[in-house]
């Protein structure tokens, strides 16, 4: 029986962001952009969607005089990510 894949996570960029954040405590926007090779505009829209879903916490701060956006995965985000991986396993047959 196949489990349904969470549509919010089953998108390349959003999944990449969640996969990055699951293995770190926090990461700033520039780092995520470098790792995912996404454009700033697209990444910003996708992070907003994850933030609205409660999967990612976004904190806007300053590093010296430069504005800085810090992203952290939330417990809801971790749970959604684990469920997504479980669903993936049912498709691949692990």
């Amino acid at each position: 029986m196949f489990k349904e894949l969470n549509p919010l996570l089953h998108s390349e960029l959003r999944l990449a962001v969640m996969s990055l954040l699951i293995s770190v405590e926090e990461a700033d926007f520039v780092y995520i952009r470098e790792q995912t090779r996404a454009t700033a505009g697209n990444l910003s829209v996708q992070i907003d969607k994850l933030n609205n879903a409660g999967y990612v916490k976004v904190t806007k701060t300053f590093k010296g005089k430069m504005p800085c956006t810090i992203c952290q995965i939330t417990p809801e985000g971790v749970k959604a990510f684990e469920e997504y991986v479980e669903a993936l396993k049912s498709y691949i047959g692990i």
Partner: protein
Amino acid sequence: MTEKESLQLISQMIQNTQKRVEKNCGTPFLIWGYTTVFISLAIWFLLRETGNYQWNFLWFALPIIGFPATLWVSRKNESMVKNYIDRVVSYVWIVFGVSAFFVSILAMFYRVPILFMVLLLMGMGTALTGMIIRFKVLMIAGFVGLASSVSCLLVKGENLILVFAAIFVIMMIVPGHLLNRAASKK
């Protein structure tokens, strides 16, 4: 995106975050290493020349210089990403730093082998950091410092300070430079 592509993407992103050493991560070791060595040599010289034991209060210049300098450098080189290793390493140094400070305060009121204890604590912190970040040179230097701390119980007089400074060169300055070099190569 197929299910296999999803899994590949997840594992690739997780792999990307598995950093071990980062640019300038050896700098705190250099700050504390050089500050300790310079202050030790200054105290050794002043004690030898004047014989006035009040010069021992100069040891308190160590945290006065070391803490702000470390904070300033870590803010300047603040990483774009923080993982669990960063958190564990900072906790290790909070515990060992507070312990060393506590022992130093204690030494003002009781007769304790302060240089031996500081070396022992710093050796433990260095070896643990080396193990956590998986940098062998740092780990070995930490254990060397830890083992050599015994020499502070054997050497007597002002020359004890010279031994203390020499161990700090091996335990912090040498691995600090090697750590920075390894990080910039990466």
